[in-house]
């Protein structure tokens, strides 16, 4: 069961309706549902866009691009239809928050998609839900059907004279498909190979038409911004990092769970006060702050505000909200290995630096963790990673490379402790079974 937790420091906005039965459309309406979109029906597109821009809302999927700014890139006139695409392909290791939004407040995503559509001049939205989330796809399907039945979707929505359609779409298992251009390829019925940018989706997207792609949490925040106002949302976090976000505490922590905290909340406080610290009498060793694609932080580096800009300055990223906590029984080399196994498995295979680079890193780390490593391997892995950066169509290559560089830079001693055939100091060595062939 995906149990809900709470902590007094939470500011519940996106999670306000969790556990309140809001999948039921009448309950959603009782809880201020569909008020925001009706307000937006009376607003000019530029005004809507500016409101979202000024709120400081930035992409909650991980990239952190200002949402209103992204919407403003959609051309006013378009020969091809424009689309809104909700990215519900949540697959970043450590991340389990969009799951709760779909489970407890699917209508907020529907409403967010509609508001985005009204802002950019689109009348069609898609909600893409990852294949493994079948029970959530069914919840979304019902929510969409209920909205149509009430006249909130379809022709003449809310009696406004305007039309809006939203369609569900289920995936079939692929991390890379969460990358926005690969998401579009998948939705078009193809392999999820990313597209080269420019042109960006806002200009050339689904079936060639301008497409706004936003993470589910980003869209779920939009109705709240419309009702509460940009200024209110912006003030919750540091400058240019407005609002709250859902943080998924995971790993070696006493109170794992999804908590909604203001942007800029201190990571150390998050781990120890919200998360209850490290259980079983162990000590904190390291934290992966925003999903496996974000560079690891040592126990000395956690006194940082969790917002996009502060995390960039700290040499990592806010990322997807997946806060994975490692205690002192964890082997960094094994952790790096598991991470590279993931990227190698999920690489779409298109770009040589990613396809070959992730495979090379994985194989080197397998040999390394089994005691077959040589000193040169450490610098070679670092050098290889450096040369993967920025040389691929999409950030998956970077997502493997940057963490590897951080593992080596910050935990070099642990790598050296595995040299000369020594067994892993932390546990028995991983048998090099090609488990993820």
């Amino acid at each position: 069961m995906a149990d809900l937790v709470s902590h007094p420091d939470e500011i519940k906005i996106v999670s306000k309706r969790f556990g309140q039965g809001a999948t039921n459309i009448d309950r959603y309406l009782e809880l201020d549902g569909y008020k925001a979109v009706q307000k937006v029906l009376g607003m000019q597109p530029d005004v809507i866009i500016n409101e979202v821009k000024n709120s400081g809302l930035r992409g909650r999927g991980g990239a952190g691009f200002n949402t209103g700014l992204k919407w403003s890139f959609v051309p006013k006139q378009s020969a091809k239809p424009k689309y809104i695409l909700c990215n519900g392909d949540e697959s970043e290791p450590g991340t389990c928050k969009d799951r709760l939004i779909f489970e407890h407040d699917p209508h907020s995503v529907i409403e967010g998609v509609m508001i985005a559509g009204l802002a950019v001049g689109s009348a069609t939205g898609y909600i893409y839900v990852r294949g493994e989330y079948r029970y959530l796809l069914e919840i979304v399907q019902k929510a969409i059907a209920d909205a149509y039945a009430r006249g909130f979707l379809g022709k003449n929505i809310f009696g406004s004279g305007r039309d809006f359609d939203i369609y569900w779409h289920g995936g079939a298992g692929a991390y890379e498909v969460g990358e926005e251009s690969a998401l579009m390829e998948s939705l078009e019925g193809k392999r999820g190979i990313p597209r080269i940018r420019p042109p960006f989706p806002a200009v050339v997207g689904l079936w060639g038409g301008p497409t706004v792609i936003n993470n589910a949490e980003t869209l779920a925040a939009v109705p709240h911004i419309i009702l509460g106002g940009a200024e209110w949302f912006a003030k919750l976090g540091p400058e240019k990092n407005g609002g709250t976000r859902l943080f998924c505490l995971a790993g070696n922590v006493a109170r794992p769970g999804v908590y909604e905290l203001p942007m800029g909340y201190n990571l150390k406080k998050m781990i120890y006060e919200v998360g209850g610290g490290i259980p079983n009498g162990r000590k904190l060793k390291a934290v992966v702050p925003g999903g496996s694609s974000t560079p690891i932080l040592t126990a000395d580096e956690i006194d940082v505000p969790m917002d996009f800009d502060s995390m960039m300055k700290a040499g990592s990223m806010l990322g997807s909200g997946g806060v994975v906590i490692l205690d002192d029984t964890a082997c960094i080399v094994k952790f790096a290995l598991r991470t590279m196994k993931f990227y190698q498995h999920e690489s779409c295979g298109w770009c040589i630096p990613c396809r070959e680079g992730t495979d090379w890193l994985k194989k080197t780390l397998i040999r390394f963790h089994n005691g077959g490593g040589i000193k040169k391997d450490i610098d070679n892995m670092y050098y290889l990673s450096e040369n993967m950066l920025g040389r691929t169509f999409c950030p998956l290559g970077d997502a493997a490379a940057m963490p590897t560089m951080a593992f080596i830079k910050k935990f070099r001693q642990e790598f050296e402790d595995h040299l000369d055939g020594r067994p892993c100091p932390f546990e028995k060595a991983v048998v090099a079974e090609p488990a993820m062939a």
Partner: protein
Amino acid sequence: MNFSPKFEKRFAEMLTHYPTKRSVLVPTLLYAQDEVGFLSDEVIHELAERLDLTDLEVNNVISYYSMLTTKPRGKFNVQVCTNIACMLRGGEELLDHCKTKLGIKNKGTTPDGMFTLEEVECIGACSWAPAAQVNYDFHENLTPEKMDKVLESYKQKSSQ
């Protein structure tokens, strides 16, 4: 070849959701697999025909998506996550326990055709780790003992 009435109704509706026929392919493949058990040559050819694609084009798509299979599987696909959050909370040990308990390796199927075991990537249950899926059902905060109960419950369900 026809699928169930429910499938056909949904398929016809889905075709109206997109400007191209091909766009229904990925979710349709999964729905077809749910029904038939795996993507047989017959299913592939049927869907290719319906969507004006070649069998090869459909196969190319199938090979990309990890949930899709062209080989028969057990009635229940036990998918154990061993990615980072689950690994830190015993996911690998859980997988090893399942291998021993079921007597099969990764991607193997029990001789009675009941269970297939699969080591999977992150399923989005990180804060409730270690976690697994059996077909589409989530099972979380697992221990080897709880896992045994889960497997038993599916065995029971199957014999009813």
